[in-house]
Structures are given as C-alpha cells and as structure tokens.
C-alpha cells in the first residue's frame, strides 16, 4: 500500500525518455517557417508509452489517463490492485470487486477552471535547436500544461424571437476575460444557432488545413426546431432548447480553451461584435453534413494508391486508437441511451403505481393501514421525481458527454486526413518536379535553347513548391501531434470531471431517497 502514497508513480519500464533538449514546438500556426522544424520530419523514435503527462506536469498523476498507460505500466495497475485491499476487508461488498483500471476516459479537474494564469509562452525557444533528437512528447505536454486561458464563456437565456416558421431562438453569449485582446473585461452578445455554425465553418476552413482539431458544433435538428418554432411549450421542446443551449456552451468553451483558435479573429468577432452578418450555407457543415464531409475525406484517403511510408508509427497507431475509441464510445452511448429510456419508463411506472397505491389505501378499511398505504403512495410519488432528475442527469451529464466526444473523435480523424492530404500534395509535387526534370533533359538532348530556359524556370518553381509542401507536411505533422496530445488530456479531464459530477448527482439522489423512506418507516410501524 505504500506505493499508493507516492505522489509520482515509479518510472514506467517501457518508456524511454530521451533527455534531450527541449525542442519546443511553437504555435503550430506560427508562420515564421523556421528551419528548425525541417529536421523533425525524420522519425521520432518515441515509444508509445511516453504519453504520460503525469511525470512532468504539475497536475497529479492521473490514474485514468490513457489506455496505453496501463499497457506499459503494469506497476500502476498493481498499485491500484494493492489498494483493492478490499479482499482483506470483512465488508463483502468489495470482496468480489477487483479494480481493473483500464478505463481510459477519466482525468482530473474540469477544464473550465484555468489552472494557472499567464498567457501562452511564446518565447520558449530556450534550448538549442541543434539538439535534433526527437521531440519528447512529454516535453511537449509540459508546454501544454503551462498554458491557461483567462476566458470564460457561457451561453444562457434562450429567447424565442419572431413567430411561425421564421422564428428562431437567440442565446446570450457572455464572456468574461482578463486578456487584453478583447474590448473589455465582460461583455455579451446575442447569437442564434446558425451563427455558431457559421463560426465553425470559418474556423474549419482555415484551421483544419493546419491540422488543428476544430471542435464540431452540435447538430442541427429539423424536428426539434420545428416544434419550438410552432410555439409549443411542452416539456420536450423545453428539453430540446436546454439540450441545445448546453451543447452550444460546451462548444464555445472548447473553442476558447484552444490556444490557436482563441487567437483567431473570427472567434473574437463572434464573441464581441454586436451585429454579426448572417451565416449562409451552414447546411453542409452541421450534423449529417459534417459527418459526410469527414467520411468523404476518409474515402479520398483510402483511395490513394500510393501508401504513405510511415517510418514513424505514431500516426498510424494513434489513428487506429482513435478509431477504436470511437467504436467504444458509440457502443457506450447506445447503452446509456437505453439507460435514459429505461429510467424514464421507471418514472412513468412509478407514478402509475403511486396512484394505484393511493386508490388501494382508500379502499382499505383498517385506518392505520389505510394511512400507511397512502403514505407509501406519496413516497412513491417522490421517488418518481427522483427518478426524473436522475434521468436528466443520466442524459445531460453522461449521454451528452459521450455524444460530444464521438463527434470530436470524428474531427480528430479529420485532422489526420488533412495530414495525409498534405503528404499527397507533396508527393504529387515531387513527381511533377521529376517530370519537369526529365522534360529538361530531353530538351537538352534535342538542343532547343529557348524552350530550355522556360523549362529551367519551371523546374526552379517546382523545386520551391516541393520544399514548401514538404515543410507544410512536417508542420502539419507537428501540429497534429500536439493537437492530439492536447485533445487527449482535455478528454481525460473532461471525462473525469463529468463522471464525478454524475456520481455526485447519484449520491444526492440516494440521500434524499434515504430521507423519504426513513420518514415512512414510523408510519409503517404504526399499523395495528
């Protein structure tokens, strides 16, 4: 058990930590085009087990970081297992419990609270770029850990504007910030759903080319919106609007907590500008449209005849991981969906039962028993309410979390595809260059000096392009790497905080349940 009290778990056997100079990765979208990055196209021999943020970051080691953590760190799970001291315990509740923590989706604190203040370090090229040993991913993560953002956004007060089929819902987007790039410390604007989609469109067009993971917005829903438009105030419309509001809020929070996206002028405009021009053509980029786009890209990639020769398996492995995880989440989401439905069913059945009990209580001729049965009916009524709240928490905390991350993983896949495209462009440019060179050679032989000049110019042009594309490809590779790591950390944090929230809501339910039944007990005892 002593091991468990270590702040930092012992070094993992499989991990190699090249203690190299910190070759920093500046902003992925830095356009300085410094040559220091060129060499990073050579394979980075980083072991898979290195994605442990735990050891260097300031945050406490996360038991639940990645799946990989478990495969390369048997010590960690045995630590956990030794904490399954439950087996020694008389309490047979835990007797069969064995703690297999290959859960890969929990992390520490919520991402809404910035851990420490301070702008993103931009001047951290402290180490000599000459140390060309592969950038340690851990060290990349250390950089990420120092980032923090003093921007807090919230989406509130949905308000229906207009009537009939042209009606829409406007949300209040409030920002609170300490960054100087905004016009003031706190401000708010009104936005509608298509505005959010428009923001996504702009961002994805620009940023995804660099390999950024742009958070996808919530999906469009014709059915849901029509109901709201038609003006029904029924609970399902209310729930729909609430669901959308919460999703939009999470979307914005993800956008602003992304260091590169926050710098984007479109984001600032979205948050600040009073009157935003209406976004058009948002159909293609929401919901089914979005998914179609991703899949089309994947198809294009698959159709590539030249297989990318990856000397570094990181990308391949990671991509596979992402796909597997998406599968798992989809499965989980289906079960949680079923859970939500069953709980709603339980609500209904409990309410119906409560009424029936009340009737029975009325029929009963023994007074004390009659009263007890009526009390039982009341308790069951309260239980119904409890179940109702639990169903909401099942849905809003658990199910939506899963749905969000399924979409996010789609976006992650998208950025891998972008990298493939960049590689493709580079390869094509190379083969074009080759052709040009061959053409030049032919011209030399055929002795046509005037055409030769043109050929030489073309070669120079294409040489430059090849260099450019190669550089782009490397850069996008770096960005993708950084983004994926950041994403994984955020995901771990998110899952952990949400699951804790979920458990806390369950805990609260249980406490209330206990109160209800404890109040009922004396009534039952009073039957004579």
């Amino acid at each position, binding site marked *: 058990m002593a091991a*468990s009290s*270590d*702040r930092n*778990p012992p070094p993992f056997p499989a991990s190699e930590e090249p203690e190299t100079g910190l070759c920093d990765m500046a902003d992925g979208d830095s356009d300085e085009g410094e040559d220091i990055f060129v060499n990073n196209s050579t394979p980075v021999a980083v072991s898979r087990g290195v994605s442990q943020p735990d050891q260097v970051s300031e945050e*406490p*080691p996360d*038991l*639940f970081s990645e799946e990989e953590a478990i495969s390369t760190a048997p010590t960690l799970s045995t630590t956990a297992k030794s*904490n399954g001291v439950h087996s020694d315990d008389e*309490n*047979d*509740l835990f007797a*069969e*419990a*064995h*703690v*297999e*923590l290959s*859960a890969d*989706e929990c992390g*520490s604190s919520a991402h809404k609270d910035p851990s420490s203040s301070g702008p993103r370090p931009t001047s951290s090229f402290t180490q000599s770029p000459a140390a060309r040993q592969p950038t340690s991913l851990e060290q990349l993560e250390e950089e990420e850990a120092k980032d923090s953002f003093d921007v807090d956004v919230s989406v509130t007060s949905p308000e229906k504007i207009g009537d009939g089929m042209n009606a829409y819902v406007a949300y209040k987007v409030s920002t609170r910030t300490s960054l100087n790039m905004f016009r003031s410390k706190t401000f708010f604007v009104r936005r509608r759903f298509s505005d959010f989609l428009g923001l996504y469109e702009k961002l994805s067009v620009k940023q995804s080319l660099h390999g950024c993971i742009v958070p996808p917005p919530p999906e469009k829903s014709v059915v849901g919106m029509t109901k709201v438009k038609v003006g029904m105030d029924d609970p399902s419309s209310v729930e729909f609007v609430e669901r959308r509001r919460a999703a939009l809020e999470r979307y914005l929070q993800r956008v602003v907590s992304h260091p590169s996206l926050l710098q984007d002028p479109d984001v600032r405009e979205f948050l600040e500008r009073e009157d935003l021009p209406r976004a058009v053509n948002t159909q293609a980029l929401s919901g089914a449209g979005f998914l179609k786009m991703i899949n089309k890209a994947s198809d294009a990639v698959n159709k590539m005849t030249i297989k990318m020769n990856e000397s570094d398996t990181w990308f391949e492995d990671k991509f596979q991981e992402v796909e597997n995880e998406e599968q*798992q989440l989809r*499965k*989980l989401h289906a*079960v*949680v969906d079923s*859970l939500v439905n*069953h*709980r709603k*069913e*339980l609500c209904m*059945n409990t309410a*119906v*039962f409560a009424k*029936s*009990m009340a*009737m*029975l209580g009325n*029929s*009963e*001729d*023994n007074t004390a*028993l009659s009263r*007890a049965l009526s009390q*039982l009916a009341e308790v069951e009524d309260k239980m119904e309410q409890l179940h109702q709240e639990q169903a909401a928490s099942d849905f809003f905390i658990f199910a939506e979390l899963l749905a969000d991350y399924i979409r996010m993983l789609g976006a992650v896949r998208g950025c891998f595809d972008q990298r493939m495209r960049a590689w493709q462009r580079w390869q094509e440019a190379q083969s074009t260059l080759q052709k040009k060179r061959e053409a030049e050679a032919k011209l030399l032989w055929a002795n046509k000096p005037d055409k030769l000049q043109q050929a030489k110019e073309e070669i120079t042009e294409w040489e430059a392009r090849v260099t450019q594309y190669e550089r782009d490809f490397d850069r996008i590779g770096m960005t993708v790497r950084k983004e994926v790591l950041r994403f994984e950390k955020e995901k771990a944090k998110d899952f952990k905080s949400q*699951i*804790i929230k979920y*458990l*806390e809501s*369950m*805990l609260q339910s*249980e*406490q209330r*349940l*206990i109160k209800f*039944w*404890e109040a009922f*007990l004396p009534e*039952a005892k009073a*039957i004579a």
Partner: protein
Amino acid sequence: MVVIPAFCLNCCSRQLIQQFLGTVLLLYCFRCVRSIIRSVSVDLNNDASLLIDIPDALCERDKVKFTVHTKTTLSSFQKPEFSVPRQHEDFIWLHDTLVETEDYAGLIIPPAPPKPDFEGPREKMHKLGEGEATMTKEEYTKMKQELEAEYLAVFKKTVQVHEIFLQRLSSHPILNKDRNFQIFLEYDQDLSVRRKNAKEMFGGFFKNMVKSADEVLISGVKEVDDFFEQEKTFLLDYYSKIKDSTAKAEKMTRSHKNIADDYIRISATLNITMSFVSLQKVEGRVASDQELKLTELLRYYMRDIQAAKDLLYRRARALADYENSNKALDKARLKSKDIPQAEEHQQQCLQKFDKLSESGKKELTSFKGRRVVAFRKNLIEMAELEIKHAKVRSSIQLYYICFIMCTNELQYAWGICKILCEQI
C-alpha cells in the same frame, strides 16, 4: 454450461443450490437464501405440534421437486419426523380436493401456489446466447451472472409460496386435520395416481364455479346480514384495486431490472469492474428484494382475497339454495304434495347456510387481522431494505468519487470509505 465452484457469499458454505439448467448459482447457499427472505405471511410455523417446511428443492429442466419436511407430535402420523418429495401438481391436487370438500365450504381455503414460472429468465438466457457473439467476454459473463441471480429469485419465490401454502394449512385448526393433507405430507410414494383420479372426478367443477361465481354475487341475491353485505362490497372493491396495484408494481420492478442490466453493460464496456458492478448488484438486488416484498405481498393477498371471495360465493349460493327451497316448500304446501321432503330439504339448506355464515364470519374476521399484520411486517421490512441499500450505494459512489479524485491518495480515500461502510 460451465460449473464453477463457488462459495456462499454470506456464510462461505459450499452447499449451493442445486443446478439450474446446468449452471451452479454463485450467490448463496440455500440456507442463507431462506434467511434472506422472510415469509410474506406472518410466521405460521410456530405450533410445535405440526411443523412443516421445505428445506430443499431441486430444479430439473423446468420441473421443480420440493422436499417437504414434517416434524410432528401428533399421533395421527406414523413417524415424528419425515420428508417426502413433491411436485407442483401435487400441491394443486391438495388444494383442489380441499376446495371440493363440502365440509370446508365455510372456510377460506388458502390460495394454491402458482406454477413455477421460469419463462422470463429462460427467454433472457436464450437472447443472451444469441447475442453472445456481439458482446465482449466481460459483458457476457456479467449478464450471465445477472441471469443466474434472476433464476435464483424465481426459484426462491416459488419455494416460498409453496411453503406458505402448507404452513397456512398446518396452522388452520380444521384444515390441518384433513385426511388428504396428511396423505400429502406422509405418503412416501408417488401421488400421481391419486392426482389422476381426482382430476377425473372434479374435473371442471371448480372452474365452472369460478365462472358463475361473479354472477351469483352480483345478481343481487338479497343479503340478510349486514356484516356480509359490507364484506361483499369491501372485498369486491379491494380485489380490483389490489389486482391493479400488483400489475403496476410488477411493471415498476421490471423497469428497475432493465436499469440494472444497463449498468452491467456500461461497466463491461468501460472495464470498470469495481463500482458499477457493485452498483448493479445492489440495484439488481433492490429489484429482487422489492419484488419479494411488495409485489409478492400484493400478489399473495390478491389471491387470498380471491379465496375469501370464493367463500362469499359459496355462501351466496347456499343462500340462493335456501331461498329456492323456501319457494319449493310454499309450492308444495299449495299443491299439498311432497310436503315432508320439501320441509326436510328446506331445513338442510337452512342448516348449511347457517353453518356457512357462522364459520364464514369467523374466517373473514381473522383474515382481516392476518392481512393487516402481514402488510405491516412487509412494509416495515421493505422500507428498511430501501434504506439499507441506499446507504450501501451511497458509500460505493462516494468511494468511487474519492478514488477518481484522489488517485494518488488512495490510502486516505480508502480509509474514509471503510469508515463509511462500517456505518451501514
């Protein structure tokens, strides 16, 4: 099916319940199972002169074989202690013969135990088998365990209702002297021969009676006694209400079960074998405990009230017979023909009716008391169980929260939770 050696979770005994379709149940040994469920009715088995229980049962395919064990000080039995194997059909035979016995017309005959119904779990097992390919190994194992728990619940239930039936008989001053009851307890051969004979004799009579019973009562035979008039109104109303409540309670417990199943699948997918599994075990246990307490209570008294209604039907019929005999006597007097027969017939009907009324009143009064006591007992137990399970679930949730949050301070977190658990 694999037979896995296991221990009773309660007492670590290895004497587990006999096989269910080839698999061994993992949870409890039979003795602990029985100590976990209290009987739905009040403790009937406290008259030492005749003690009956069902200490053991075997499930072969769908047939359940009960071991009926009797301990008695009465001289009417050949031995002071003995056991016989009995099937469900034997219980039905016993019940039917008691119902058909004229002498017992004025008594509430304890309702027959329902047929063991493994349809639910069996269907689930079938579905599980079909879906095996699509699930992970963990999921499959867990669902299988849950299924075994369900079988266990059905099994527990059926043993219990059969036992209660016998205990009701043994505690009834008149019925426990019945000759057929004695045969049932003692006869060490197969009862199937007797059963067949009985069927031929009584065949559809009982069913016919039930069919026309409602008509007799409702047709408004003029009631002469206030007590019975009130009882009639009360029982008819109460019966329909309790039938409704039973159905709704069953639906509710089914929903609980579905939720428990979902938690199993969640925990299997997440590979978090600890907390969620315990959660679902408790959730599943809640569903089955609630089922045993409330639903069974309601179901049992629904049937008991039916038996009380049957008594009222018989009495109403006797009243009708009496009134008809009066009319016949008047007719005879008018015609001056067969007067002595008519008078005698009238006297017989009157006697029968009076006897039924007298014993009926006694039965119905004690029935009331019994019902109130049973409800009290079960409502208390149900509330206590709800509280207990909620506390257990809370501590599991709390533990899990601590675990996630303080992952490097597990020792500390575990310490907290240990304390909490001990408070349950």
